């Protein structure tokens, strides 16, 4: 037992009372009374019991990447830190593969390759840890090929708190506490208990190599017509050709950056379904789609600008496709990035929004996006304001998994993340307003259902939002839970699970499942 308690008078308190990617939190008045640094699952149970018995609210941190204030705005409460619990060794009597909740994805990729030559179809950011990533249904560069992480989870170790306030340790799976197991497969963190381990019977084999590539466009040369052509070319590909299984090894992030950044473009990672890059037909075909749009030469600098915090790794170019930079890497080098990548940095402030799209962009959507990416705001630095449009679909679209996971979005071909970063607190208002207005207008066009105006509510074009990109602005809409979890049985199922396994609502935040 070796819990390290960091209280307010500890010199480490200010350092550790911060997330990795949003300096907006915590606000001074809402800071927790202490942080409990835990070394193992037993420590976590002790720390949790202590908090509950003292009548204090526990919030949980693994990688520290929460987009909203769910962890750090915990006035007088307790932050239970899992970041030092990073084991990936197997446990006796458990499914074959184990990943501790505190393990950063970069380490997971490395360890799982070394031990078993398997991997997660996980995230783009190596410092995001398994705890939050998987519980929210995380996805990544291999998801079109292998689905989302929760599709592979076969058991979970979780600490819950019973009606009398006693901490219970459970291993839940398809046969034990089935409804809680389902909720842990994408329902989102901070809802039901503290997950300490994820288990997997099977995991995808690590691809041997990948191609990373970029397509860049110059903002000074951009016109609204050309901008729409880029968006529609991209969207049309994923709506049509991207559905063919031979393309599922292709994953892209289109970085629609603000005009002041100078460039916009597409980051690409590719391998064939057999885990090699011997045949580049699919990749070249994709790249060729954009030739009429007038791409410019990519440099490492423009690639970084386009990809932002989620830029796909590039080394010195080894090959070129036309003018475009291309380089070959060992898969692990491209994804783990030494474990130090990701996160917008300790002093960076951010705001995020998300949406799922089942179809390509319309002219109205393209016009709205163009409008906000070319809008300047006096006194606000918009160079790190981006609408990232990730490819999706492929193996993520297994509809039969809606019933056994807590991820309902199984028909989308693109997944969007509006992200804006800044440093100075006095720019908070400008950035928050820009993001809110951009998003509201984008989803108030001719394709939006008037009843659900300002949101990508579920219809023939949209599938709501992603709970791991939480956005408190959505709380303004009475249907916010359906936005994230769909119109099916998931919302009532999650509520029932909440009432059964957390009857006193010990685990709560602004957007947690409500009793």
């Amino acid at each position, binding site marked *: 037992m070796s819990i390290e308690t960091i209280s307010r008078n500890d010199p480490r308190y200010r350092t550790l009372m911060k997330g990795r990617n949003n300096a907006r939190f915590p606000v001074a*008045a809402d800071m927790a009374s202490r942080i409990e640094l835990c070394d193992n699952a037993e420590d976590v149970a002790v720390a949790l019991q202590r908090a*509950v018995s003292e*009548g*204090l*609210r526990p919030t949980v941190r693994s990688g520290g990447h929460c987009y909203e204030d769910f962890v750090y705005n915990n*006035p*007088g*409460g307790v932050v239970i830190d899992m970041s030092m619990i990073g084991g990936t060794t197997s446990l006796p009597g458990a499914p074959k593969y184990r990943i501790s909740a505190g393990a950063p994805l970069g380490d997971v990729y490395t360890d799982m390759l070394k031990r078993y030559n398997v991997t997660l179809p996980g995230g783009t950011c190596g410092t995001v840890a398994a705890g939050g990533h998987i519980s929210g249904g995380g996805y990544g560069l291999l998801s079109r090929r292998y689905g989302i992480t929760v599709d592979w989870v076969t058991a979970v170790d979780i600490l819950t*708190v019973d*009606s*009398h*306030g006693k901490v219970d340790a459970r291993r839940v799976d398809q046969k034990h506490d089935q409804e809680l197991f389902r909720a842990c497969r994408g329902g989102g963190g901070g809802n039901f208990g503290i997950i300490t381990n994820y288990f997997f019977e099977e995991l995808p084999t690590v691809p041997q190599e990948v191609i990373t590539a970029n397509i860049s466009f110059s903002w000074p040369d951009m016109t609204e017509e050309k901008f729409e052509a880029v968006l529609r070319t991209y969207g049309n590909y994923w709506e049509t050709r991207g559905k063919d299984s031979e393309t599922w090894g292709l994953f892209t992030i289109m970085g629609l950056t603000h005009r002041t950044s100078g460039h916009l473009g597409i980051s690409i990672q590719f391998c064939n379904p057999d885990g090699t890059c011997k045949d580049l037909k699919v990749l070249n075909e994709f790249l060729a789609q954009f030739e009429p749009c007038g791409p410019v030469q990519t440099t490492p600098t423009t690639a970084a600008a386009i990809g932002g915090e989620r830029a796909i790794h590039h080394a010195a170019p080894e090959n070129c496709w036309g003018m475009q930079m291309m380089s070959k890497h060992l898969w692990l080098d491209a994804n783990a990035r030494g474990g130090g990548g990701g996160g917008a940095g300790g002093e960076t402030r951010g705001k995020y929004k998300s949406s799922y799209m089942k179809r390509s962009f319309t002219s109205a959507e393209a016009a709205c996006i163009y409008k906000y990416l070319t809008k300047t705001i006096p006194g606000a630095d918009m160079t790190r304001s981006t609408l990232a449009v990730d490819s999706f679909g492929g193996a993520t679209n297994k509809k039969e998994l809606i019933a056994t996971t807590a991820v309902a979005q199984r028909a989308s071909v693109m997944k969007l993340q509006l992200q804006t970063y800044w440093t100075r607190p006095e720019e908070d208002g400008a950035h928050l307003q820009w993001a809110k207005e951009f998003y509201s207008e984008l989803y108030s066009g001719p394709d939006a259902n008037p009843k659900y105006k300002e949101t990508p509510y579920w219809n023939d074009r949209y599938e709501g939002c992603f709970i791991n990109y939480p956005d*408190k602005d959505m*709380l*303004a809409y009475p249907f*916010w839970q359906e936005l994230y979890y769909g119109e099916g049985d998931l919302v009532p199922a999650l509520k029932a699970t909440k*009432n059964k396994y957390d*009857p*006193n*609502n*010990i685990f*709560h*935040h*602004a957007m*947690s499942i*409500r*009793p």
Partner: protein
Amino acid sequence: MMDRSRWSRRQFVRMAGCSSLGAMALGLPRLAPVSQASDKAAPRFAFISFDGKGANGAGISVFDVRGAQWRQTSTVASQAPSSLVLDTGENYLYVVNEINEHEGLPSGTVEAYTIDAVDGRLRLLNRQRLSLSATAPRHAAVSPDGRALVVAVHGGGAYNVLPIREDGSLEEVVGILKETGSGLYEEQRSAHPQMVVFDPAGRVVSTDLGSDRLSVFNLNAARLSVSGRYEAQAGHGPRQAVFHPDGRLLIVSNGLDASVACYRYNADQGRIEKKLAQVAISRGENTAGVLMAMDPAGKFLYTTHRSGVDGVSMWKINRDTGRMRRLQIVNVGVPQLNEISVTSDGESLVGLSSEQSGVFVWRVANGQIAGGKRVANVEAPMSVAVKSS
């Protein structure tokens, strides 16, 4: 989990939602010395909160009560104002908004109002959101020094403490104490704090209907810490609490079995020592809890019951043994009283009836309940507070 089928769920919720006795400040003994001088003063203004479905919506009406018939003088809008509490100087009114959501967040709210000394008009000072998950707050009490408002959060199973500024307005929540616990019945799936009162030493005593628990908390720097716990009989569902003026008897009405229990309280140590006595107020089927109020001098306890007749009983409590002796039971003819309270001069019993959309007053000055009269029409009244000073 047992099914309490003898009540309908709707009955229970309605009852529980309206009978928080928010007007404790008027009907119950004043423990703070500052208020002693006003105990004999005649009532001047009554504040009645209501949550109607009609055109008037929800709010708080002010009545001039210096006359046979109450005269409504003003009204302010307020959301689900389930409980009203005056500060010890009766200069400010605090309102508990029993809501589950505020500005999209899962929280109830509380409001602070100033009271115009001339006409009783209310002016909103501010409204503060309670802590996350502090949904459906039900009751609040002002600390004897007037510097903190302690809120019992029914839905979210918690207590919140908000410092009170010099001007009577409320600061943001500082103290949060999250409860756990459950009981025998459907209504007891989780902790449900119902009411908070201050003991003579300034500690907070609370009832928890969900966990059958009575608690004593220390209040320091707007934060609560547990001083003592007392596990009440399983299935009681403790709801209202009132101290006898000597501070050694704690009387608790139980929401789930329509009983009243009397406990020995150790004010020096902040501890509930033992249960001295208990009486069943209603028996048989269709009991639906019990409301109670005590006159400021501690001479009588009044209770309602809901089985058979719509009755109000007057009780005498033995200060040494805690035994309760019923002096009188009166069929008041007003069904479904939501709340009762005794004016601080000890001469009148005020009852609110949602079913009758009215406010009723009985004379109780001479050890007799007499002269029931409708003094005001209010749709869906919830809570009452009476200003005397």
